[in-house]
């Protein structure tokens, strides 16, 4: 990592994730990085992108300085186009109206499976985590972007529990389980951008952030990463991108 950088890890993740979104997409976002990423995309290259919140909001517009505490409170709905019940907004995913979902988790493995349920043996957990929420539904039905810090304890050989399915055991196992749509698209970290090999479905480095080496990424990962033949170097966040984020979160409650 470069030391002279003028942005936080959260800002970096938000900018890089935001660039992965395409204009016109319908995006399921949570608060924090996903919301920053989607809003940033809306205000830069993707003005006709639509943000959905799990709480039931369609076409949210985030107001600077008024970030919602979760996706289930009224702040999410200010100037939205539509509100739906929580069940019906999740059914939009099942019907296929949603292109991209954002996801996090305490653990992710080489096939993009995510754990937000148990650390340790689920029968005798060291830590009981908050659980799936809509995470399982979103990752079962949409193409996923995971935005997370790159830490060895997080990037594990095998998650303790598959809360949200990635490619399960790789290859065709996801499809074999009955999950016919969606799947892991990208993992964005403070070190780089990862994708998944089209056959084995193993995680693969696609792009390294400025000053980061593949070895550094591997050293922070608990399993063997594939490396794309044509690894890119990520464009650093632009001043204009950072300005949007800082306008959204002037007190830096979420981007610090």
């Amino acid at each position, binding site marked *: 990592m470069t030391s002279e950088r003028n942005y936080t890890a959260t800002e970096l993740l938000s900018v890089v994730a935001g660039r992965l979104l395409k204009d016109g997409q319908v995006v399921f976002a949570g608060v924090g990085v996903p919301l920053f990423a989607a809003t940033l995309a809306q205000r830069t290259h993707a003005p006709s992108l639509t943000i959905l919140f799990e709480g039931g909001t369609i076409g949210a517009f985030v107001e600077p300085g008024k970030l919602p*505490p979760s996706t289930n409170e009224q702040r999410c709905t200010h100037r939205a186009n539509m509100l739906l019940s929580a069940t019906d907004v999740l059914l939009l995913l099942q019907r296929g109206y949603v292109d991209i979902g954002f996801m996090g988790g305490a653990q992710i493995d080489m096939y993009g499976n995510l754990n937000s*349920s148990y650390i340790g043996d689920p029968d005798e957990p060291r830590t009981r985590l908050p659980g799936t929420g809509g995470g399982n539904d979103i990752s079962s039905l949409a193409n996923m972007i995971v935005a997370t810090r790159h830490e060895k304890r997080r990037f594990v050989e095998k998650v303790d529990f598959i809360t949200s399915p990635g490619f399960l055991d790789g290859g065709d196992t996801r499809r074999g389980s009955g999950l016919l749509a969606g799947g892991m698209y990208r993992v964005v970290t403070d070190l780089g951008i990862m994708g998944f090999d089209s056959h084995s479905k193993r995680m693969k480095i696609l792009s390294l952030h400025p000053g980061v080496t593949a070895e550094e990424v591997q050293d922070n990962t608990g399993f063997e990463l594939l490396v794309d033949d044509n690894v890119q170097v990520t464009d650093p966040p632009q001043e204009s991108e950072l300005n949007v984020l800082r306008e959204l979160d002037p007190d830096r409650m979420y981007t610090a």
Partner: protein
Amino acid sequence: MPTVRSYDQLREDVRSRDRSLREKVVSLEEAAGLVNDGDGVGLGGSTLSRTPLAMIWQLIRSGRKDLKLYRSIASSESELLLAAGVSRYILTSWFSQGIIWGVSKVMRHYTENKLAVFEEWSHMGVGMRFRAGAMGVPYLPMRTMLGSNLTNRLEDIEESTCPFTDEKLLLVPALNPDVALIHVQRCDAFGNAQLDGLSFMDIDLAMAADKVILTTEQVVSNEQIRRRPDQTKIPFFTVDAVVEVPFGCAPHECYGVYEPFFDHLDWYAKQIKADPVEGARRYIDEFIHAPKDWNEYLSKLGTAEIVDAARRGRSIYDL
């Protein structure tokens, strides 16, 4: 007990309910009398929104035991129910103090020490279960939870092959709670309820439950309801009690009326962080058992916070 009630039983349970057009406004105490120890209780709202906190507050005061809780997403209200000994079981998709305060330390204490069960379904899984219950069908098919480990820990679930497409589907069983607690912005004395803003799973929950207790910011006239019947979201014949409780979600929010009481919740989170068990117990003693009534509870939250939460709540309509 089988997961899904037989249709014969389900019908008999509805048939025996008094579904006549009748006034049913009662006090919090009286409404709490409709909840029995051991009941399965569906909690309306989600996270910090439209949580039926006044009713929960009363159930804790009334010393209910062994309630099974069902909620789409659980937050501090469920921490209090665990810590007060009212419940040892919650079915939900996510249990947190709220994103800004992180994982629920009370939930961690109770579940990691096997003092309580947190049965985890996906958010849509919970929704489909309430919806099946609302529709009078024993299950609904869905396309999530497949492949994950969530299904490993659940008995009441069936993988199935679709007779039309040969696709794998998950069949999730109807959930018909013994009682649903739902807070609304307004309803009439019969229980015709209008909801503003986000409805979460409350409409399905009301239709699915054997009994519905509504708390409401305001009891309005039936005439007002009849002016815009397309705004009524819960029909009176599903409702068994109506309690008028202004600020009945405090310190959570009620859409368009007040936002969450963030300062109080911050303070609460600090008490919990310092000691999940003792912090929660002290909070329950001070804020739930000590006040002589709901208004005294509100006064302990503080006028400044009430006014601020209301100011923020109303601002949603300022466009």
